[in-house]
Each structure stands twice: as structure tokens, then as C-alpha cells.
């Protein structure tokens, strides 16, 4: 039997106020993380001539950067679990800046791999994960909107960085551009400064009770509630933990929660997403070459990507708003599966578009689908595992996705080279995504049913335990006591005022 869900937050997320500043910081941070590897492709031609290498050797720079950004996920999670989001993002911003500045003085392609690929890539990894994590800490009721807004940073930054890079390149050459981009990346530190740590609400009554609790009551070791508590109180609580029996697994789980692999919802999400990413990025990479292959000129082909970015930019916040509505939020997993399948259907229909108008329509729908999926990418994970364990979950998910993200475009490229026709690549991407969407839909239907069943069982046991003077942790306004939560375990987050049943379903429980 798996350990009970430790998915609760020991405080009420503000759902506003300083949270919007945090969303803005996350917007910048996420924007840089996703857009930067794509935007530096503008310099590749010149660097290729300078070092006398082939195009594929230069393209490795982008791939290494992307791989490090995703592969550095677990390390990022561990650091956030230990230090909180703010120091990690500031350090990440400094690392990015240093990487790019040193890249400006590189004399070989290998040095470029290290400076731009590894160092800056890792800095971006330290930016991406904490930004996503801290949104979960600041928002609950309005979390989908916050996620949608923050993820909109990616297309906005890409649309800004691409012409900016071209301008820098024309005026300063590639070395000067890298130098200045190092300074621009330091703005991630500004974003990090906005990530004010949030933990226990400064409620003096709670503080008192905790002080009482650690003296009088012996609580079970509770992994995930620790990171919700500010460092000062951690030291108070960990004192009691030292007296407990602690094997190395539990200690490691404090930093990176491997017990997530027993979490049903997490596994569903992991398998579905890993499958989806096989076909997610390839169409974007090959859209412009496909347009040129059909005889469309270079500028119109580039314009297709601009259309995609603009639609993407608008679609993400709107998807966030829709996902936040009371009809969709409880069943957000279905909405996510639907958007993946919609994306897949777009790709399957793309080969039917033969003219420029057809491709424009395809770009619009593709941008829509892409934005929908991206906006809900992390929201659904938060929804399944809860904000407390999300820190570790996002790290584990990104490193698993890393492989398929890197494999997707090369597989598409191989298909195009083998058959000499782009349509097989689109069919493959579309089929993979429709499959992923269907898989997620079915499995989440199963998951929702299991959650409902477990909730009914839990209520039944609680009713019996009520007689033994165990307090129900169900509240309406969200003042939750840490001590009581530790004993009971279930996640209770006030989402809406209606239907408790639905509420319980959304707060993912971890029994398998």
C-alpha cells in the first residue's frame, strides 16, 4: 500500500496580490527558457562560416541547450526543495549570463557547446522549473489562469527575441550579440527577485500551535509538507524528525520524491506526455521547409511561423481562463486530452493543404492547439499530484520528456529523407498525438472513477473515526492546521463552494 497522499498545502495560497507579480516574473523566466534555444539559431550561419563546420555540428548547440534545460529538471527540483524558488532562479540567471558572456570569447565549436549549450542551458533549467513551481504556491483557485498567462511568455519572448537577435547581429556581429545577450539573460535575476518566498501564513495562532506541536505531539515524518514551511520552522520540525527512524530513502525523498512513481495520476501523465512529445515539436521545425518545398517563397514561409506565434500568444491565456471556469476545472484532464487530440487531428489534416491559404489555416489551428496544450501542460500535473509534490514531479517529468523531445524532430527528418515527402512526417506526428490524447482521456476517466471511489471510502472511515474525536479537516475558508493534516493526510484545498465530491476528485489522492 502506498503512503497516504501528502499533497496538501499548509496555508492558503493568496490567488492574487503579489501573485500577479510572480506571474510576471514567471512569464519572463519561462519565456527565456523556451524561446532562447530557438532564437539563437539566427547566428548559426555566421558561426558555421567562422568555424568552418557543417550545419549539423552547429545545430548541436541548440540541441545540447534544450537537452540540458530539460535534463537539469531533477537537479532544479532538488535545489528548489532545499532552498526555495528565489535563490535558484537568481543563480540560474547569473549562470545564463556568465555562459553567454564567456561564449562571446570562444575560439572553438567545442567551447561553444560548453558555454552556450551546457552552462546557459543549465541556467535556463534553473529558471524554468522554479517558475512553474512557484505559481503553484501562489495560486489555487485561479491557478489555470496564472499558468496560462505565465506560459504565454514563450511565444511573446520568441517574437521579441527573433528580431532583436537579428538587429544585434547586424550591428554587433555574433560575438557582440552573445555578449549583450548575456546581459539580457541577467534579467532572469529580476524575475527571480520577484519570487518572494511563501510558506506558512503569518498567523500567530498557527505559529503558537506549531511550537506546541513540536514540543508535545509526536508527528509522523511527513515529506512534502516540509517544503511548504519556511526554513525557520523546518529547523524546528526537523529536530523532531532526527529522533525518528530515518532510512536513506526517506531522506532522499525529502529532496526528490521518488514515491511519485507509485502515484497513479503521475504515471498516467508521464506516459501520456512522453508519448505526446514525440510528435509535438517536429511540425514546427519543418513547417517553413515544407512551405518552401511547396513552392512558397521564404518570407511567406517565415510569416506562417509568425501567424503561429501570434495565435499561440492569444490562445494560452484564453485557455487558462477556460480551464479555470467551473465547468472545465474539475474535469481539466479531459480538456487536456482533447487539446492534444485536436493538435494531432490538425497534423493529420495538414497534407490536405496544398496552397498557401491552406497552410495559413493550418498554422492558425496549429497555433491554437499548440497554445492550448502548452498552457495546460503544468497545470494538469499540478492538478494530479498537488502543489506540494509538484516540485519533485516536474523535475522527474522533464527529464523523462527530454529524450522524446530530442528524438522527435530527427525522426521526422529521417521520415522526410526516406520518403522524400513531408506528409509522412505529419501523419506520424498526428497519429502519435491522437494516440497520446486518447490514452490520456481513457486513463484519466479511469483515474477519476478511482479517485471518486477512494473518496467515498475515505469518507466512510472518517465517519467512524469521528467518534474517536479525530477532527475532520474539511473546512470552507481554508484555515488548515498542520498537525491535524499530518495525521489524516488527505489533500483538502478549497476550490469551489459547490460539490465536495468534485473537490475531492480534483485533489489527487495517491492510493494506487
Amino acid at each position, binding site marked *: 500500500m502506498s503512503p497516504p497522499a501528502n499533497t496538501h498545502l499548509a496555508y492558503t495560497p493568496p490567488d492574487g496580490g503579489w501573485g500577479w507579480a510572480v506571474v510576471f516574473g514567471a512569464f519572463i523566466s519561462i519565456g527565456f527558457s523556451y524561446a532562447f534555444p530557438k532564437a539563437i539559431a539566427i547566428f548559426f550561419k555566421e558561426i558555421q562560416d567562422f568555424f568552418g563546420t557543417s550545419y549539423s555540428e552547429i545545430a548541436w548547440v541548440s540541441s545540447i541547450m534544450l537537452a540540458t534545460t530539460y535534463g537539469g529538471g531533477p537537479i532544479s527540483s532538488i535545489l528548489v526543495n532545499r532552498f526555495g524558488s528565489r535563490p535558484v532562479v537568481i543563480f540560474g540567471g547569473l549562470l545564463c549570463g556568465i555562459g553567454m558572456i564567456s561564449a562571446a570569447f570562444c575560439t572553438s565549436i567545442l567551447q561553444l557547446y560548453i558555454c552556450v549549450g551546457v552552462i546557459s542551458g543549465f541556467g535556463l533549467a534553473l529558471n524554468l522549473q522554479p517558475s512553474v513551481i512557484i505559481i503553484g504556491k501562489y495560486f489555487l483557485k485561479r491557478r489555470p489562469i496564472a499558468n496560462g498567462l505565465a506560459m504565454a511568455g514563450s511565444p511573446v519572448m520568441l517574437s521579441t527575441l527573433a528580431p532583436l537577435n537579428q538587429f544585434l547581429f547586424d550591428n554587433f556581429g555574433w560575438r*557582440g550579440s552573445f*555578449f549583450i545577450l548575456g*546581459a539580457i539573460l541577467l*534579467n532572469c535575476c529580476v524575475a527571480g527577485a520577484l519570487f518572494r518566498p511563501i510558506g506558512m501564513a503569518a498567523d500567530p495562532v498557527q505559529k503558537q500551535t506549531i511550537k506546541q506541536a513540536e514540543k508535545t505531539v509526536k508527528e509522523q515524518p511527513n515529506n512534502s509538507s516540509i517544503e511548504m514551511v519556511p526554513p525557520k520552522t523546518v529547523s524546528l520540525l526537523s529536530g523532531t524528525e532526527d529522533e525518528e527512524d530515518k532510512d536513506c530513502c526517506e531522506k532522499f525523498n525529502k529532496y526528490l520524491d521518488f514515491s511519485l512513481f507509485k502515484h497513479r495520476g503521475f504515471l498516467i501523465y508521464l506516459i501520456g506526455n512522453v508519448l505526446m512529445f514525440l510528435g509535438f515539436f517536429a511540425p514546427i521545425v519543418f513547417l517553413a521547409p515544407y512551405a518552401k518545398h511547396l513552392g512558397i517563397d521564404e518570407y511567406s514561409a517565415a510569416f506562417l511561423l509568425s501567424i503561429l506565434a501570434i495565435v499561440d500568444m492569444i490562445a494560452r491565456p484564453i485557455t487558462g481562463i477556460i480551464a479555470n471556469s467551473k465547468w472545465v476545472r474539475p474535469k481539466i484532464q479531459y480538456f487536456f486530452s482533447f487539446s492534444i487530440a485536436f493538435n494531432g487531428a490538425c497534423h493529420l489534416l495538414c497534407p490536405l493543404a496544398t496552397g498557401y491559404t491552406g497552410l495559413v489555416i493550418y498554422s492558425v489551428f496549429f497555433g491554437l492547439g499548440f497554445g492550448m496544450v502548452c498552457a495546460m501542460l503544468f497545470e494538469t500535473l499540478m492538478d494530479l499530484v498537488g502543489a506540494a509534490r509538484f516540485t519533485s514531479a516536474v523535475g522527474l517529468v522533464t527529464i523523462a520528456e527530454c529524450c522524446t523531445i530530442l528524438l522527435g524532430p530527427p525522426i521526422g527528418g529521417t521520415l522526410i529523407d526516406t520518403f522524400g515527402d513531408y506528409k509522412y512526417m505529419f501523419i506520424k506526428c498526428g497519429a502519435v498525438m491522437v494516440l497520446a490524447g486518447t490514452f490520456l482521456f481513457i486513463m484519466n476517466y479511469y483515474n477519476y472513477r478511482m479517485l471518486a471511489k477512494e473518496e467515498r471510502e475515505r469518507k466512510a472511515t472518517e465517519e467512524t473515526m469521528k467518534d474517536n474525536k479525530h477532527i475532520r479537516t474539511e473546512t470552507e*475558508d481554508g484555515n488548515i492546521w498542520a498537525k491535524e493534516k499530518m495525521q489524516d493526510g488527505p489533500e483538502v484545498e478549497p476550490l469551489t463552494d459547490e460539490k465536495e465530491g468534485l473537490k475531492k476528485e480534483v485533489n489527487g489522492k495517491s492510493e494506487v
Partner: protein
Amino acid sequence: MRGSGSGSGPGSMRLRLLLSLAALWLSDANEPGTAMTTRDINQQTRESISDYTVKGHDLSTPGSHLSTQDFNQQTEENISNLTSAMYSISIDGFSSAPVEENVTLYSPANITLLCSLTRTSTDSATVEVTWKKDNERVESSNVTINEIQNAWSTQYTLKIRDRNQMGNYACVFKSDQEVKATFHLQVPQIEGKDHHVVSYVGDSVVLVCKSLKYIPINWIWYMSNGSDQVAVNDSLMPDKYIVDEKYANITKLKILKISEKDDRSYWCQAVFKLGESKGKVSLKVLTYMTPLKPFLAIAAEVIILVAIIFLYEMYSKKKQMHAEDEKEFEQIEQLKSEDSNGVENSTTRHRKV
């Protein structure tokens, strides 16, 4: 020179197919000394065919104008390199604007220039047809003039062997009005770079020139010295200039140890059999101070913003702590009075809330 983007894909494919079929048919035709090599015909015709109407008799005429003697002479030279192509312009009536066509010739070839004038008025006044090279009138036996139902056409067959024959050839139709079409015979264009290349003092830079599709015999680099051009001698200064010609149609000039004096224009000249053609690449040299100013400006902005955010946070925390301290004091007093009852009481109290 037309880019390959002009005309629809299937249209030009059909055209090429027809032309190659026509060429094959011609080679089978029982006319002595008429043979058209099909090699490269597709390439050249694809570039500059406009409004080409396929008519059987039009195709047959070029062949018949190659005299046996001329042809035999050519076969003695190097028949394998000879290409033949036809370029045509269709003029739509006397009132249309003068039409121009770029003909790119890479190596010696036999070309036929065809002008056709359509839609003249039914009043068929005599139309005088002349050809001009570089605005000088040409008299040649290689010119034919046809007229079919008020549609006039003329052909001029040329054997291009050296650079003197390159230039502008114009066909002029004159009755009471005059209209002309011009063929610009030129060597392939070289692609330099529109925007200047930026590099830094002490660094090295690679200037690239490309010749699309055609391979020049030789490349020569020049640098501008004031108003004239001086050849770049890489053998004389091997640690300053390196010319890399890994691929024959791309030339790369690598300049090492750049100094401010190297801030000038460079010309890459491609030598073809029928002439030369130049591309321009200009180099701009900056010092390391130039990007340093924006860098420092942005870094300063980052530091200022971070400082503002942290100061604001400390300020708002102080305010909050002040307000809390007062509240906390009161509530602690309250708690202490209830404390003796233990945990239960506090939770009971909480439940009421």
C-alpha cells in the same frame, strides 16, 4: 535571369519535357548537320522562357538555320560542351512597354533569340523588323522573319564563343509605332552579402561569396583602396589572408588579425569563359568597447530593478510585522488563557470558526 519560383511547378515540367522531346525528334529528323544536344537545355530554357508557345514549325526553324559547315566546325572544337537554347519574348501589340529578358550564359553556346509580336491591328501596314546589338544595327544571315496572319516573329541565331558577343540584343518592330524587346546576355551573377559583416579588432573573419548553380573557372579577391581596387595577394601575406576554395562554387576569404584598416569593401570576382562577374562584401570593424556600452546599460538596469524589488519587499515586510506584532500580542494573551485546556480546546475553538 528568372528564379525557379516563377511559373507553376507542373507547367515548367511540361515545358521541359516537351523541349527535350522536341530536341530528340529533331535529332532523328533527316536533315544533315542538324543536331541539338539536349544536355543543359533544360537548365537554360527553364531560366528564361517566357510566354513560350509550343508550335511545331517554330521548333523546326532553328535547326534548319545551322549550316552544315558551321556545325562541322563546331564538332571539331568541343561538341560535348556545346549547348543550345532558345529564348523568346512575346510582345503584345505596339502599345506595350518595352520588355527585357536576362539571359545567363555560363559557357560558349548556340542560342536562338525569338521575338514575336501579336495583336497588331488588322490594317497590316508593313512592319520593319530589325535587330540591334548594343544599339547598333545588326545585319546577319542568321535572322529570319516570319509573318502569319498579322502575327510577326523573328529569330536571330547566335553562336556565342567569346565575351565580345555578350551584351544587349534588341529586336525592334517598327511600322507607324515602334516597339522593342531586349535580351541581356550576361555571365552568371555572384552573390555577395547585402549587409556588412561585423568583426572585432584582433579577431578573424570569413567573407563568403557564392556562385549559385555555375562553377567559375577562377576566383580573384579585390579590396577597395580608396576608389580603386587592389588585388588581395594571399600568397604574399599568408598569415593575414587565406583563401579557401573547398568547393568550386564557393570562395571564402579568411582575414586574420583584423585591425581598423581592414574596414573596407571586398570584391570577389568570378572568372567565366565568357567574362567576369563581381560580388561585394563589406567588412565593418568594431572595438570591444562598442558592445560594452549596451551591456553595462542592461546590467545596470538589472541591478537597479533587483535592488528596488528587494527594498520594496523589506519595506512591506516591516509594515506587516509592525501590524502583526500588535495583533500577535493580543492573541497570545488569549491563547495563554486557554492553553491549560490542551490541544482539544484549541481545535474545538477552531471548529467554531
